[in-house]
């Protein structure tokens, strides 16, 4: 099964068991949204998704080997 690296940030780190990075095996064709469901992250808590450093939507399909990053609402400056 292809492997995916998921990076969790800010308040979402609590869904990674205290670790900022989670490695997961996924079935080919899994979407980012399904990945977040598997991690039990409520969709209302995520605002920014990246796949390989590009903005992605929850219906983005993963093939394996990607780097996924998930953020809640973020701002500052």
């Amino acid at each position, binding site marked *: 099964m292809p492997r995916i690296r998921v*990076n969790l*940030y*800010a*308040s979402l*780190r609590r869904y990674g068991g205290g670790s*900022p990075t989670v490695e997961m095996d996924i079935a080919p064709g899994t979407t980012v949204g399904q990945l977040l469901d598997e991690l039990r992250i409520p969709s209302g808590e995520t*605002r*920014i998704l*990246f796949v390989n*450093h*590009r*903005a992605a939507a929850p219906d983005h399909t993963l093939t394996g080997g990607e780097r996924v*990053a998930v*953020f*809640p*609402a*973020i*701002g*500052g*400056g």
Partner: protein
Amino acid sequence: MSLIYRVNMTDLSVRAESPPAEYAERGGRALTSALLAAEVPPTCHPLAAENKLVIAPGILTGTGAPCSGRLSVGAKSPLTGGIKESNSGGMGALALSALGIQAVVLEGKPRDDTWYRLVVNADGLRIEPADGLAGLGNYDAVARLREEFGEKIVCLGIGPAGEMACAAASVAVTDIEGRPTRHAGRGGMGAVMGSKRVKAMVVDPTGARRPQPADPDRFKAGAKQFQASLNGHPLTSQTLPTYGTNILANVINEAGAYPTRNFRVGQFEGAEAISGERQHDVILKRGGKIEHACHRGCTIRCSRIYHDQNGQFVTKGPEYETIWAHGADCGIDDLDAIAQMDRMDDDLGLDTIEIGATLAVAMEAGVIPFGDAQAALGLLREVQRRTPLGRLVASGAAVLGKAYGVVRIPTVKGQAMPAYDPRAIKGIGVTYATSTMGADHTAGYAVTANVLGVGGRVDPLCPEGQVDLSRNLQIATAAVDAMGLCLFVAFAVLDDEHALPAICQMVSGVHGREFTGDDFLALGKATLAHERRFNAAAGFTAADDRLPGFFHQEPLPPHDAVFDVPDAELDQVFNFVR
């Protein structure tokens, strides 16, 4: 009643005047820019007697409106050569507005070398010799003034950089704890204050009676809705209070837009070590403070108090821009060293963005190596010792880069870029290029729609749509800056349709007449028009609304992007100014 104090530093006289009609309902940036445009010759030398330093609270400051304690400090900038409004938190705006002061305008300059201080209280404003203050850093100067005047005072002041009239000098403003941690940093406002030989302004609001809104019920209804909007947005109610501004580090790094080693690449391998998440943990472990407000009435509380390993106070925050400038941009991943530099910048009275960028350019030049935090601290000590090299550092990235023959200098109109690479976030590149202020992220924070998913979404890597995004944000920001509102309320304004009407309702309550959303935008446009016309008269042309060449020529990893918004489109940002 509102007063404008005219402080003539040539003949050491003070005049209190009722605001003329054209300034009567203006505040913050709308007032500083209108006054400068009307009264300062655009071609004057920024350190000459003709320049004026205008210090103005916002329209809503002091009314009890949430997050409305921002202070505008304006002048012709010695850094950019154009008009400048530099915006600060801290208690300065609230203290001035409590005394019914709409603005303090410093004019002229003394004929001798005496240093002065201004003392402002319920009895008026007086000019006194600043005996014993000259030469002190901001921390010691404030300590001495609090000893003399008591702990209720608020201080505005300059450090050694401002005394030397160096172009990266800030005006320090004390925070709730009375520490000089908040600064009107950008554009060398401290140098202008220093040129007028004013070391400090002591504001004592004791006995002052806060001005009341003309229509209190209307104001209160607006304030209640506005607070509900701030409470309802996850950014202003959760992320910013918990993690502070530096929570941006990881997301901008993930987007490949975190300028690293003087804008060579867009990702820093040490980002996690200087991230907001790490900073949060370090602060709590050492007994520092999160959810700290930089001024009373701030409900977002994004400030922090940072302690060293022994649990002793070092500095506030530090903020995202500061940590990036002294961190990733210099290849430094040591949060404690960065906090030390922030403390030194505050004490010397320096703009942390400009100085971090200048250190990175010094590294590019080979003056010190990338990644060497101790050497960077050494360059700040050069400023403290007032050596020729220290003066170069305190003059900013463009001047130091020129002195060392550096080509990769990330400035626009002489002002250093903040913490977003314009090749990977093109909307902010449009703002950097075209802002009347020089490279300034706060002038039109397109990072919102480009990366953060706030106020819609515009692909950060495509040139399309960036000009419209930047234009709309620049107009709205100029109006927010006029209100005295913290720019972070914009996150709620962009996402919640009730927030802007609430602001307008508060202003309607203050003035006692209708102020609409159209009036809000008209105020922003009028302010930008004053600034554009001033800059044009000072000699700026379309050629000044451009990024340095390397942003067009050097692809930025990981996206290998260049800045490719066409020049003709950049020239349309201010298509509403005739």
